């Protein structure tokens, strides 16, 4: 799973969000390192929709502009959980071999 995809799914893990909300949330989660652009975001959203990992939660009109909220599907939750567990186990192994604990300090 690509990093942008992982971060988009993570942004949706705590509840439905609209496009701009996802962009802001992904920037927060990544500590400002990943700034999603609209083209990348909607390409990913379409792919995730086609794969059944996300769905449309609701649509609203705010200031004459369409705002569509996306949410994780049960399949999306499973995929995200599996990917998070995989990354976690890799990160744990790397930190253990470097004699570092997960809090970031030397053991």
């Amino acid at each position, binding site marked *: 799973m690509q990093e942008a995809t992982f971060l988009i799914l993570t942004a949706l893990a705590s509840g439905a969000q609209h496009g*701009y909300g996802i962009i802001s949330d992904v920037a927060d989660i990544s500590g400002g390192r990943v700034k999603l*652009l609209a083209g990348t975001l*909607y390409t990913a959203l379409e792919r995730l929709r086609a794969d059944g990992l996300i769905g449309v939660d609701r649509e609203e009109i705010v200031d004459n502009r369409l*705002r569509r909220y996306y949410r994780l599907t049960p399949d999306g939750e499973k995929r995200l959980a599996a990917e998070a567990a995989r990354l976690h186990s890799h990160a744990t192994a790397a930190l253990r071999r470097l004699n570092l604990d997960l809090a970031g300090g030397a053991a």
Partner: protein
Amino acid sequence: MSEPAEPGLSISESASLERGYRRLLAWYPKWFRLRNTEEVLAVLMACAQDDQTRPSLEAAVDLLKGAARMRLRPMPGQPRTVFAAVWLMIAGAAAELGVMVTLLATQSGIKADLIARYPAYAHAIGHAVNVQVTLDVVAGPIVIAVWLWLAWASSRGKQRGRVAFAVFFGLTSLSVLYSLSQGSLVYAPAAMSAGLGIWAIAAAAIMLIFNKASSPYFQRREPALA
């Protein structure tokens, strides 16, 4: 998450920026535009800088990359078999164009070569090659248009497009068989190979559109666009 309401943009700046984004979004496939244009615009405008009147180069490249990716994906509800068949039909049109251009570019060489081999028939050969080239120049664009129409009709799941492609494939097969029976492989090996190549593209496309996975897409009453 609160969305800023396009801050710092005057009405004319905002309109000019929005026009720029709309021009870029026009590169996306129709199904994507119907579904997402207004929403993507809302996000783009919310991300705009103060006083911005044109899309940034970074945003423009990102949107064009997104458009290319979306065009390389099946539209929602379209089986992969149909998507592959549509691209084969576009390849068929491109191959026909290649053959037509090659023929036009090499006609004088072909004529000179044949006349050198059969000098006694110089006049007849010149006439025959001219007739053949004229026929190809007239028929070529028609055949290319047919390939492209078939690709368009198949991509939208039109049953008559599938039937028309079956007829087209039948005619292409007959023409290939006729050319083979006339010994084309011996006296015009390059042209015959090109013909066989195009026939193979059509054969692959017909197997895909009559595949079990494709059939439901052609049998729906609703148009294909989401």
